[in-house]
């Protein structure tokens, strides 16, 4: 998880995107050269480069959190171009247009769908980004936290994310009463309990509500807003409480990490909102 030891995926990914145009254009240009040399008789087989490029593009699209259906479907065309006999000039033009299209899609994937996720869906670590930064920076606050409390935090986070607000409130209440729970974690459980109860009954923000203390600021994922906007403050309290529980669960209950990873998108949404 440390930056000193980058995973293989982290070093391959930037090159993989650049490889798409290289394969697509390179395949056709190599095909043209081989055809002129009399080695390749059918220009359709020069589309192999485009086919590999489209498969690579589809793989890169698959590893994104947001899937690009256009990029995912490009190998279909790659296969069609590879298996369909075509006249030389039309074949070359078609393959070059296809290569240009793949290049545009690779650039679009990079800039519109964000950087790739190291290791895709099978990763066991949080991908680099604000969520991992927060979880790592707040780790010290959960040193020595009992794993049972970490598991409680994970369960409260799971139930809340599933919209099971009553169950989340009950879990949070039980966890906040458990002996040995640090004060800031108790406050997070209490905030979650209050929000879950209100959401369960579809009630609006009360005039007075639970907040974190100024001393909790170092473990807050989002800065606490100043006075004057209670709705914003109320929402930020909930986000901070959920993210604090996410981090507590991550550090104290390693067996819950796979489930937490499956909900990282929700946690990221809370953090970036």
């Amino acid at each position, binding site marked *: 998880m440390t930056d000193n030891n980058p995973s293989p995926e982290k070093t391959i990914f930037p090159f993989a995107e650049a490889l798409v145009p290289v394969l697509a254009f390179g395949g056709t240009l190599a095909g043209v050269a081989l055809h002129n040399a009399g080695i390749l008789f059918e220009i359709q087989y020069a589309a192999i480069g485009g086919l590999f490029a489209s498969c690579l593009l589809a793989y890169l699209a698959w590893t994104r959190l947001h899937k690009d259906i256009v990029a995912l479907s490009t190998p279909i065309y790659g296969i069609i171009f590879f298996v369909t006999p075509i006249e030389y000039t039309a074949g070359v033009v078609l393959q070059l247009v296809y290569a240009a299209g793949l290049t545009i899609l690779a650039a679009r994937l990079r800039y519109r769908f964000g950087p790739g996720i190291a290791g895709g869906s099978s990763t066991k670590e949080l991908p680099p980004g604000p969520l991992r930064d927060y979880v790592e920076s707040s780790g010290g606050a959960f040193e020595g936290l009992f794993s049972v409390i970490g598991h409680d935090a994970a369960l409260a986070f799971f139930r809340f994310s599933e*919209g099971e607000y009553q169950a989340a409130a009950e879990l949070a209440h039980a966890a906040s009463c458990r002996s040995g729970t640090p004060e800031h974690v108790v406050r997070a459980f209490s905030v979650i309990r209050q929000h879950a109860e209100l*959401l369960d009954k579809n009630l609006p923000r009360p005039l007075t509500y639970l907040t974190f203390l100024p001393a909790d600021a170092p473990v807050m994922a989002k800065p606490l807003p100043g006075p004057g906007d209670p709705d914003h403050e109320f929402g930020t309290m909930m986000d901070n409480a959920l993210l604090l529980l996410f981090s507590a669960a991550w550090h104290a209950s390693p067996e819950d990490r796979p489930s937490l990873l499956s909900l990282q998108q929700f946690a990221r949404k809370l953090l970036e909102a």
Partner: protein
Amino acid sequence: MKIGSVDVRISILPIAAFIVFTSGFIIAAFFGPPEMADDVRKSLIWIIPALFLLLIIPAILNYMSRSQYADLEPEYEMKAKTVRVRLINESMIGKIVRIVGVVEQARYQFINRPQFTVADRSGSISVKMFTTPADDVKVNDIVEVYGQVIRRYIVTGEPVINCVIIRKTEQNG
């Protein structure tokens, strides 16, 4: 057009197809070359019903889908849990939810497959529907939405709402 309790709406696309083909046949029958005009006139016995089928088939399909949705409405109203838009996430896939918000975008209504972007104070979400809504929903309408959380592309993509009911509650301005 109301059939029973179902308000059947034909989208603009079949109507446009009906107008285009009808105009084509009228031009061919009355202003085309004599041989072609003769052929068209002789074939009117099947051309006219076929033209009306361009309207009748979409109307039947719309009636069927609208009545199916109408049957689902009580179940969704009973089971739905009111949620904030921002709290909708992958682990809610399959859950029946209710959201209240303002319509920010309304697209594809002309093909009877409307897609709305509905926002509340916490965020916005895509609301997909596979038939015409009972209400004529427009941008800036305040609506309540009942539907199931699904992925945008069934097996992948971000969570969206597969809408069964979208109902105006009040309108801005």
